[in-house]
């Protein structure tokens, strides 16, 4: 009965050792079918064809050595138990291998045939056990996530009902309301809104945990987001007598981030800070660049509150963490806000941390990747080691008609962006990632390696193509304009590429252009004197 025999893949380059292993396996009680290869590459190829019950692996092969060998095998056959057969009695390496998921580490020559057979059988059993544990863990997680997502959806309907009727009463749609009644209704409304926020956080945390959060990153001026968040929190802080201050480095480049998510993080951090700051204190939100970490923007929220004890600090970003000393402890919420913030920042490629001294307040800081215009522009505006002769910034503004549906408008703008990307030359023009927009109006920007005369052909093409985008004409209007980008120091550029350090100077020039473009984007509204509108 061939298929009841155990299939073994033996990866071993020493023919003598291979024969020995084969012999011992054949001597054993149960039938074994040994497939022997002498290189790692052959072993990995064999794993594509077969799924052995166990892999016997020598670590030192002609094409791979040591820990690399088992790592590659584990990567390629994550579900097959691996037993290392090594000539080296190296306990440190053995433990390391086991921690990486290898099932056993046997030393050649120190193992009998029955011992080898047993080691293989046990390895198979252990692996199966691990797999079933992993499967049930995944199932439980999936079940929990489905359950939470179902619960938070179902909670919304009664929540909506309460919200609707309370606002109907409050707005006087069901008759006059006495001042005292109004106060009570407002209390109900506040609680309903809290409940709504909890339901939202529950779903968000569940999603973060199961990796189901989708980001829509845009090019964002972090200062704008900070100002919006502060404006939204002003009333809450004012009621409590806590000052809200902003300190934003206005030369900070754009960050590449999902504006809605970042706004959520900021509001959460500011809300916490206000909560833990006594009346008369202040909360300061800052954003700046840090020279030692040039690819990130640093954003911080500092309060003058009670501070966070040293033992609580490492736990504070954990799910469901609650500070037992928290003020007004009757309403703590779910303790998900900072967990969600940590997950969101992580998804953006940044990190979040806390500095605090009890009694002296806390500072929560996080980083977001800066959007490097220079890096994106480099291949586009340089050619054969020098800057191109002329660069133009083309601006495409889509304005919705006043009665446009925001849903359909979003879809139209997305299709316009896709069309725009087809209107440019990939090697010398660049459509910048969409800018975060305050309202429905969309601005798309193209950096084009051309001059103001020739750019008109491109603008005509953009216009013609975008006008063909379905529904644009019936829902909005289109404006295409262009402005020349002043290039740095044209005299020295003609000097050519033979100068040493040219690469660095070119990078500097590109950075210079990028700065100018950013400045134009930041300051110039459509239709400035040096732009040409059609």
């Amino acid at each position: 009965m061939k298929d009841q025999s155990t299939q073994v893949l033996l990866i071993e380059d020493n023919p003598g050792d291979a024969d020995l292993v084969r012999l011992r396996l054949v001597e054993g009680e149960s039938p074994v079918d040994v497939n022997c290869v002498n290189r790692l590459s052959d072993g990995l190829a064999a794993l594509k064809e077969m799924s052995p019950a166990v892999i016997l692996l020598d670590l030192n092969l002609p094409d791979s050595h040591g820990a690399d060998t088992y790592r590659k095998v584990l990567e390629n056959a994550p579900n097959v138990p691996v037993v290392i057969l090594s000539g080296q009695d190296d306990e440190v390496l053995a433990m390391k291998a086991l921690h990486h998921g290898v099932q056993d580490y046997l030393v050649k020559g120190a193992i009998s045939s029955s011992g080898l057979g047993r080691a293989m059988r046990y390895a198979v059993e252990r692996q199966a056990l691990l797999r079933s544990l992993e499967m049930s863990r995944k199932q439980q997680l999936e079940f929990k996530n489905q359950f939470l997502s179902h619960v938070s959806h179902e909670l919304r309907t009664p929540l909506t009902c309460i919200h609707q009727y309370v606002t109907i009463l409050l707005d006087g749609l069901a008759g006059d309301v006495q001042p005292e009644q109004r106060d009570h209704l407002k209390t109900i409304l506040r609680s309903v809104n809290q409940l709504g926020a909890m339901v939202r956080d529950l779903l968000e945390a569940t999603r973060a945990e199961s990796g189901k959060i989708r980001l829509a990153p845009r090019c964002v001026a972090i200062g704008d987001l900070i100002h919006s968040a502060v404006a939204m929190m002003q009333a809450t802080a004012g009621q409590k007598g806590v000052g809200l201050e902003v300190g934003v480095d206005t030369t900070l480049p754009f960050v590449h981030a999902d504006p809605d998510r970042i706004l959520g993080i900021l509001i959460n951090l500011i809300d916490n800070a206000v909560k833990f700051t006594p009346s008369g204190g202040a909360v300061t939100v800052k954003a700046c660049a840090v020279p030692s970490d040039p690819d990130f923007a640093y954003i911080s929220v500092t309060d003058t509150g009670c501070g966070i004890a040293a033992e609580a600090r490492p736990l504070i970003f954990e799910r469901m963490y609650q500070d037992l000393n928290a003020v007004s402890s009757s309403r703590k919420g779910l303790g998900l806000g900072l967990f969600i913030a940590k997950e969101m920042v992580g998804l953006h490629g940044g990190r979040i941390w806390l500095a605090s001294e009890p009694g002296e307040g806390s500072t929560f800081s996080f980083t977001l990747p800066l959007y490097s215009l220079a890096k994106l522009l480099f291949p586009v505006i340089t050619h054969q080691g020098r800057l191109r002769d002329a660069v133009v910034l083309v601006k495409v503004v889509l304005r919705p008609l006043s009665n446009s549906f925001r849903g359909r408008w979003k879809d139209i703008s997305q299709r316009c962006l896709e069309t725009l990307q087809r209107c440019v030359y990939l090697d010398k023009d660049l459509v910048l990632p969409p800018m975060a927009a305050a309202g429905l109006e969309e601005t798309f920007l193209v950096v084009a390696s051309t001059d103001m005369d020739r750019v008109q052909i491109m603008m005509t093409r953009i216009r013609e193509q975008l006008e063909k985008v379905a529904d644009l004409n019936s829902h909005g209007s289109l404006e295409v304009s262009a402005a020349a980008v002043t290039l740095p120091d044209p005299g020295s550029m003609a000097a050519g590429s033979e100068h040493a350090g040219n690469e660095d100077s070119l990078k500097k020039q590109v950075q210079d252009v990028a700065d100018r473009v950013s400045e134009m984007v930041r300051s110039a509204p459509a239709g400035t004197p040096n732009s040409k509108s059609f």
Partner: protein
Amino acid sequence: MATSKILIVDDDPDLRQALKLRLRANHYDTVHAGDGYSAIAQAHKEQPNLIILDLGLPAGDGYVVLDRLQHDDKLSSIPVIVLTARDPQSSEQRALQAGAAAFFQKPADNAELLEVIRATLPHETTTANLPS
């Protein structure tokens, strides 16, 4: 100018009633349906100026209703605002692609909803005499 008529489609009678109160207080006329099938029937019979549609409905969910409306020459021009307890991440794009003019998650902010209703209603932007 005649009052705009809005068809409210929601399987929860309490929510239908609440929306009706809110919209009537803002001088809209309302008609109602509690499932997908009667939503289409009501739309034919009443020819509303706008439809507020829940997604989770018996007898043809909101997407089915959107699809029927889109493919019916007599109804395809009526704008639809989706108002649902479902999650925007999983439902918003699908609803908009199916032809919805706007998407709101319950509980929606009343002022925002009324604003979008005003902006979405055909021709209504020209009438300045409607109180908010």
